[in-house]
């Protein structure tokens, strides 16, 4: 068990974690450590290769990886220490108010980090097929839009050739365009609600530009196919989102991508015993982004799902500052 002591431990090296680390360092905190579970910093931005990031923060339009790389460069320049491939398994509160973060990675094995404050920046995950409760078979070819995005944009591999997308959130819309550009046919995007959850500009440039129909008030009633998806049954739904009998039609496809909402990833937060907000899925925080546990701050999508990464960065900067302020007050 390797042990170390920090002032601020930041869990997650995505846009929130990076911005929080930078602001904490700027505010004068020397002992900051970022723990990142992936093999590189940048988080989900690395796979968001489309443009549209950074208009507020950098006053120019960047792609996700460019936005991430600017922050990574700043973190490198500020010599902010980070650990990659490192998974935090537990955060606990000690009787003296300090926190113990338990983590593991291949190089250090088990790690125990004692720290004054923790900044939660774990981001969010996608709602799965199981949680959506879509009936039918369970073949290969059903992926969350983000998983498909990883295969295409990071690995250069196509998870399907003929695609139906359920859910018109931004990742779904963006992936409709990506799949088409990389050689797939996208049959349609189906949206349960009467309007799309995605940005208008994404409907224009991801669907309209490629003549991909968006079916509103529509959902997947059944998935077909034994080994691989062979098609889906789409159905219209009523105002309560319930399928309307007789309105079904079949769409042959080999892939179903799901873009049906994001869920803040708060397993660690719950384990710590922080009060949760049933509406946002994130912890309850005060003005200063502090959870019900003193000295634990949250920012970015772990708090609530943000529309713009620029807002995440701005929020995380505050979290970094508040964490430093907490340490100052504590130490008089």
């Amino acid at each position, binding site marked *: 068990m390797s042990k170390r002591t920090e002032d601020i431990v930041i869990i997650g090296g995505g846009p929130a974690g990076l911005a929080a680390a930078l602001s904490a360092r700027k505010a004068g905190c020397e002992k900051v450590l970022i723990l990142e579970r992936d093999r590189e910093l940048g988080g989900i931005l690395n796979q968001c290769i489309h443009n549209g990031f950074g208009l507020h923060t950098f006053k120019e339009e960047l792609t996700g990886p460019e936005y991430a790389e600017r922050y990574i460069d700043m973190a490198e320049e500020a010599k902010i220490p980070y650990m990659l491939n490192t*998974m935090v398994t537990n955060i606990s509160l000690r009787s003296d108010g300090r926190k113990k973060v338990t983590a593991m990675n291949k190089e250090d094995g088990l790690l125990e980090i004692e720290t004054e404050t923790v900044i939660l920046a774990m981001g969010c995950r996608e709602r*799965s097929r199981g949680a959506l409760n879509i009936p039918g078979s369970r073949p290969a070819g059903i992926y969350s839009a983000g*998983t498909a995005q990883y295969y295409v944009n990071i690995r250069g591999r196509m998870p399907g*050739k003929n695609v139906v997308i359920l859910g018109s959130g931004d990742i779904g819309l963006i992936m409709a365009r990506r799949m088409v550009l990389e*050689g797939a046919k996208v049959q349609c995007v189906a949206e349960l609600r009467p309007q799309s959850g995605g940005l208008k500009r994404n409907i224009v440039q991801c669907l309209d530009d490629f003549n991909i129909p968006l079916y509103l008030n529509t959902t997947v009633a059944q998935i077909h196919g034994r080994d691989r998806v062979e098609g889906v049954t789409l159905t219209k739904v009523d105002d309560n989102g319930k399928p309307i009998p007789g309105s079904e039609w079949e769409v042959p496809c080999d892939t179903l991508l799901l873009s049906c909402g994001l869920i803040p990833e708060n397993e660690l937060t719950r384990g710590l015993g922080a009060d949760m907000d049933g509406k946002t899925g994130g912890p309850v925080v005060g003005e200063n982004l502090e959870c019900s546990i003193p000295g634990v701050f949250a920012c970015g999508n772990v708090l609530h799902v943000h529309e713009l990464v620029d807002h995440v960065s701005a929020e995380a900067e505050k979290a970094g500052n508040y964490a430093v302020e907490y340490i100052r007050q504590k130490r008089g």
Partner: protein
Amino acid sequence: MKDYDVIIIGAGVSGCAIARELAKGKLRIAVLEAKSDVCEGTSKANSGIVHAGYDAVPGTLKAKLNVRGNEMMEELSKKLDFPFRRNGSLVLCFEEDGMPGLEELYRRGIENGVKELKLLSPEEVWAMEPAISRNIVRALYAPTGGIVCPFGLNIALAENAAENGVEFYRDHKVTAIVEQRPVWTEKPPAKEGRMYQVQVDGEIFEAPIVINAAGVYADEIHNMICEEKIRIVPRRGEYRLMDKNCGDLVNSTIFQQPSKMGKGILVTPTVHGNLLVGPTAEDIPDKQDVDTTAEGLAKVLNLGSNSVDALDGRQTITSFAGLRAHLVHEDPAEKSDFLIEEAAGHPGFIDVAGIESPGLTSAPAIGEYVAQIVENIYPAERKADFVDTRKGIPSMALATEEEREALIRENPAFANVICRCELVTEGEILSAIHRLVGATTLDGVKRRTRAGMGRCQAGFCSPKTLEILSRELHLDPAQITKEGTGSEILTGKNKDTAPGEGGTWKRTQEPGGKEALHE
């Protein structure tokens, strides 16, 4: 041609239990499995219940093997290192009219030799299980009831059989069986027997003993050579698996007293701390149809809520359906039972058919029972070096801090977390791939390690697991499947085809046309 003493058709829990039991003798044994892995049919999608044994009609094989299987399970779980817990089971009775039925279960249980059975008052039930409905009149309590990991049991049996020399052939679908007679005069006992040639895609496996443990396909295998035909109807059951948040809603397995409302739905914790609710029961024509349905999943929740009010459908992390191999008896009065015997007129061909509930519980006893049948017709000397224990894949999620440190010291890959929801590491996945009868597919890894079984349902870990499989098996990522050939995860590389081409597909228009298009 490959030559064996025993060929077992089917690597489900029955086939693997039989293989392990027979491996105690000096026999050359092959297990032929049509699918890409062991535990792919009925064995993978069921309730995971170790029944106490009050349900089966006294005198049936089901009754006998259920009680025996239940007795064997605990020790077996220790020897073979798979998750099992004796959590007890309750059968809830919701109306006075149901009492004679409940008392009948109690009597059957006593007659079948089930120990410690008790009828409980509602107050006694609520003291044990506060989440149980207020609408109950009595309950039957069986402390010997338990839960098991169905994959864990099946895979442990397979690995231990393989360790003792049983050869597993996966992706080996039997297409025909040719019977040759009379033969094996020189083999003891010197009597007239048969030699069976079992054909698999042009390859021939030959043995004097063939065991038909083909699950829902056992009728097809049986009917390949037997004059007296049997028929198995797949009986589909749909389930919802709930988040670990609600895994402790109940401690025991909660059954419902069968009534005119139907057979009832069970609510049970799983050995891994989730909550499982189901199954429905529906006879269907297609043996591959494991589709869930909107009606079925709604029914599971509605009926399950009769037992436990607080059941919350939003906690569902996945749903699935399994098929029970229901043997159709021509005479409906005939008691529904397992068919485990040497087929009439075909010495050495042994059916293990109609293994529906309590098949999982009975599996270890089925192994013993079939081994005895084989011993009677084809005796073999005992192996002195039989290994009767097996070490499972270590679980970082369950390990103590000291155990974690020891595992990581041994192999740092145990500190590389792949599945965050269930805390499964690269070390565990490597072990799953490289052990005997190892994992070759994403589902194979999932069933052995739980990677991808958590609340995100493999969204984050499947690309990583795919990468490890591809690296370790020296396969291109495009060759990695979910569950065998045809279920490849990837379909090609970026830009293999021109934008929007996607092969030969045509876009389907929504009926009604324009109104469908947005704006």
